[in-house]
């Protein structure tokens, strides 16, 4: 069964550094998403992406965040200057077009900012 994959599984970085989180969505999916989950808290929507542009973004997704689909398979989330509060699990998700189609999540990247 096709799966969403994410790399790396864990990343430790220093405050102020840039990080890039990578995702490979399921191949026939056209909508892509990033979510984050701070330890012990709810899963929070960050951004959705379709047709090479952002469809929707939450208040969390400020100027330090950016997304890109650099080629036909990868979908990346860049955090330009990490803060301590960016420490969280980051999940990528994808879905097929069509009403009622569900999002499928990757295993996540655990980001720790020191």
């Amino acid at each position, binding site marked *: 069964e096709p799966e*969403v994959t994410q790399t790396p599984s864990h990343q430790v970085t220093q405050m102020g550094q840039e990080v890039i989180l990578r995702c490979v969505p399921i191949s026939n999916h*056209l*909508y892509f*998403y990033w*979510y984050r989950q701070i330890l012990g808290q*709810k*899963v*929070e*929507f*960050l*951004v*959705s992406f*379709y047709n090479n542009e952002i*469809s*929707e973004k*939450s208040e969390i997704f400020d100027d330090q965040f950016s997304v890109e689909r650099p080629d036909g398979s990868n979908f990346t989330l860049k955090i330009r200057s990490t803060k301590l509060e960016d420490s969280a*699990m980051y*999940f990528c*998700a994808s*879905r097929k*077009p*069509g*009403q*009622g*189609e*569900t*999002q*499928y*999540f*990757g*295993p*996540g990247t*655990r980001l720790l900012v020191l």
Partner: protein
Amino acid sequence: LAKTTQPISMDSYEGQEVNITCSHNNIATNDYITWYQQFPSQGPRFIIQGYKTKVTNEVASLFIPADRKSSTLSLPRVSLSDTAVYYCLVGEFRGGGADGLTFGKGTHLIIQP
């Protein structure tokens, strides 16, 4: 997405059937009901989705009454590995703008031996 209400936690035992009910009084005509499962340190995993009546797959059943203001996720013969957080989400899931999922706190299901 319509607001949903579900129990914060539930306990059960191995081999039992577990039913988790979700209230969604403001569900709209075009809304679907979707349940996700999440284990610690893993991404949410789709379990089942329905629009009305009953849906069954290899993992669970979803019961939706005629008024669609609530739904019940039924897990048959649970095992210890079913211990997880279960989320009920209601929305059109149509793609495009405004389709980021809004997760609540979910129901933390604990299965004991």
